[in-house]
């Protein structure tokens, strides 16, 4: 399941709902990402995230479908916030459920790599010194490349 919205993400609530959905799956992995308080250009006051529907959604749906072919997953959830956010706000919440904890870990990791590098979002950090559009970091590309080199276990 995928939801992109400007509404705040309540990870605690989402985990509870996901557990109900993934009833007795065995293992659940979640990742939640928060807006960082510091950027290379100083303290962040706000983060603005822009999506382009339905391109952003279809890209993420493809990544979810790919994860489902690579790993045996009972349930997958991707929540992504857009619009204006403050440091500490949750930007993204990914949850995976599987009988095998390795599958749940790797699928969540894979989805996060997609979301952080290839997902159709543009983001602008507002800091004390100005506002900057952020391009992908090299580290992110390296993370995503891992999945091309290695077969899932």
């Amino acid at each position: 399941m995928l939801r992109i919205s400007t509404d705040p993400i309540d990870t605690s609530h989402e985990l509870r709902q996901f557990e109900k959905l993934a009833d007795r799956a065995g293992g659940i992995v979640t990742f939640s990402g928060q807006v960082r308080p510091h950027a290379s250009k100083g303290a962040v006051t706000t983060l603005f995230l822009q999506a382009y529907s339905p391109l952003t959604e279809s890209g993420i749906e493809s990544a979810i479908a790919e994860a489902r072919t690579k790993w045996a997953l009972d349930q997958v959830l991707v929540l992504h916030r857009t619009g204006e956010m403050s440091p500490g706000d949750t930007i993204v919440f990914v949850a995976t459920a599987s009988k095998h904890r390795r599958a749940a870990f790797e699928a969540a990791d894979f989805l996060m790599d997609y979301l952080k590098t290839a997902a159709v979002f543009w983001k602008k950090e507002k800091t004390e010194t100005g506002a900057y559009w952020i391009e992908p970091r090299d580290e992110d590309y390296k993370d995503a490349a891992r999945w091309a080199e290695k077969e899932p276990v």
Partner: protein
Amino acid sequence: MQKILYFGRLSDVTGKSEELLDIPVTVETAGALREWLDTRFDASGALLDPTVRIAIDSEITFDSAPVHDATEIAFMPPVGGG
């Protein structure tokens, strides 16, 4: 009238994130539209940058794609992830 979208840093260059436009009949392709808009906004090549991709009606496309049947044309700088 066609809807043109400018994403990410391009909206800073154009001063808007979207607009409704009558594209001149002589501007037939996505590539020609890049050049026409770049001149129009005095964008110094920001719209010509090959890393800026064009989507027509939510499909990433090439510069050779015709634009006059399009409803929505989007200019997309490299995506930064979430």
